[in-house]
């Protein structure tokens, strides 16, 4: 059974059906499964419902390429390399995409709920904001909350008065149920055990929340090695369905202990893709008619070496803008 989880990047992307609810690992410009997203674009996936704690370059790639019909998250941007998500912004202005806003804490608790088999979780955040404006339930306005997709909740949120203590109104946020979670991590064992180095963000939760969990690992290592110290592992093997060995799978986002975000690449992408024409040009140059290996060759060894993280520090002592 050990080897059966190992598949190729293109096989992994083929698992994603058009219209799937999909989520991705990482946080803003760190550990986002960009190589997988490029392959989704090559395979011309359509009508994806992207749902994630926050969005970064990977989401902008997918949205710019027209693969996404619903964006459900709390934030999109490129940190210091780009002020906002220019592709999402353009598609929203053009009414080409459905958007739904939550907060980080709400999205985190939504994935935790889904990962724990709970239909909802109670939070007391963002009270009094337009995030809770009942007129802004965008999936409802789009007619997507009719129960025809059992993973889409019937409401954006609900309220309940705490029956146990204060009686105060609580916000109930619905479980973020997803078809597929794609996780980009430093190490995976041959049976699927995942060891994430650095902050693990919401990756343990999204892994359990999904029906199918796919891991892109910088290194696939013998399972026995990871099992010598199970307290350092992040996701148990049986939660992972497929493993792809994919070095630099997060580029241009960063991978703690392996490489920094490629700030120049992200900034250029942000500047270039303020228009759809710019995006299409970017896609022709970096995504279409190539493979992940071709992409890495195009980047060149010198560039990759320049992004290297120190194995002592976990980050580069040279790249200031990590």
């Amino acid at each position: 059974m050990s080897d059966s989880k190992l598949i190729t990047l293109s096989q992994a992307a083929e698992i994603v059906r058009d219209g799937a609810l999909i989520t991705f690992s990482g946080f803003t410009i760190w550990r986002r499964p960009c190589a997988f997203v490029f392959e989704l674009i090559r395979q011309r996936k359509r009508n994806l419902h992207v749902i994630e704690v926050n969005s970064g370059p990977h989401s902008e790639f997918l949205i710019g390429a027209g693969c996404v019909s619903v964006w459900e998250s709390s934030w999109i941007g490129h940190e210091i390399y780009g002020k906002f998500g220019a592709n999402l912004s353009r598609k929203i202005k053009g009414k080409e995409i459905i958007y739904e806003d939550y907060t980080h804490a709400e999205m985190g608790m939504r994935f935790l709920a889904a990962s724990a088999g709970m239909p909802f979780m109670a939070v007391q955040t963002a009270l009094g904001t337009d995030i809770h404006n009942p007129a802004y339930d965008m999936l409802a306005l789009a007619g997507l909350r009719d129960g025809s997709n059992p993973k889409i909740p019937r409401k954006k949120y609900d309220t309940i008065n705490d029956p146990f203590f204060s009686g105060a109104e609580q916000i109930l946020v619905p479980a973020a149920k997803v078809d597929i979670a794609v996780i980009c991590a430093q190490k995976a064992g041959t049976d699927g055990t995942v060891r994430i180095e650095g902050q693990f963000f919401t990756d343990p939760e999204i892994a359990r929340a999904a029906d199918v969990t796919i891991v892109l690992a910088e290194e696939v290592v013998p399972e026995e090695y990871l099992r010598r110290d199970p307290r350092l592992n992040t996701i148990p093997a049986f939660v992972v369905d497929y493993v792809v060995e994919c070095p630099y799978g997060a580029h241009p986002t960063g991978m703690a202990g392996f490489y920094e975000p490629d700030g120049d690449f992200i900034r250029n992408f942000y500047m270039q893709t303020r228009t759809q024409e710019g995006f299409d040009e970017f896609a022709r140059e970096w995504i279409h008619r190539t493979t992940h290996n071709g992409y890495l060759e195009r980047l060149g060894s010198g560039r990759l070496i320049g992004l290297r993280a120190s194995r002592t520090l976990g980050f580069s002592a040279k790249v200031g803008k990590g």
Partner: protein
Amino acid sequence: MMESSARKVNKRGYTLADLMTVAASREVRDGEIVFAGTGIPMLAIMLAQKTHAPHLKLIFESGTFDSHPVALPTSVGDPRCETASSRSSGLCEAFFLAQRGYIDLGFLTGAEMDEYGNVNTTVIGDYLDPELRLTGGGGNPDINSFARRTVYIMVHEPRRFVQSVSYITIPGWRVKKWPSGQCVHRRELYGGAFRGGPSAVISTAGVFRFDVETGRMYLDTFHPGHTPEQIAGLCMFNLDIGRVRGETPPPSADELYLIHEVLDRDELFVPRSAD
């Protein structure tokens, strides 16, 4: 954000960015647990840690608690946030701690704010038919909701200090009660979960605070080169300037040294002066 004015050094030998960073750092009290965003907020916190607040505890929403970075992180997902931390984990645990009430102070940047400290980082124009979609809320509404105090860093332009924000992303002192959208005091809406709200705004023009009862912003100190009346003119709402205390205290030589020679040698967030 402050690229146009940041390198202009005044006759006292420091820039506006220096002044703002130092003013922000002085908002931190020793021993406090501080939830940090990136940019000037992080720099200000690290400056406080090296000056008057050596026992502050720095939390990042990505999951590291009580960090002591040796290199300046440029985003909260950066492994530089993990250095010498007490524990490294993930986002859920960070917000468990925050919602449980461990956070004293949040540090945020804002794009557009009204007189009650409500902030919009989501959209320019109508949410349902936007002129420009921005980043969205991220963890900012959470940090503000859970912390006892929140300090904002902002560029001071009239279009940013508005009568009413088009979308409340981050709650201020008077917020909307749903489903009606009626405007109520934050304390009324948050009830037992009320811990505080926006406590200060450090803008490029001055330092502002809020009257907790009325929820309205007032001018506390003005930066050198500004007057209270001129600052009032930079706000689209009727700014209370009756409680002003004087000029914003300048940075010390020690603070300037720490900013430029220790914390941000690479000028990631605060450029050196041009001369």
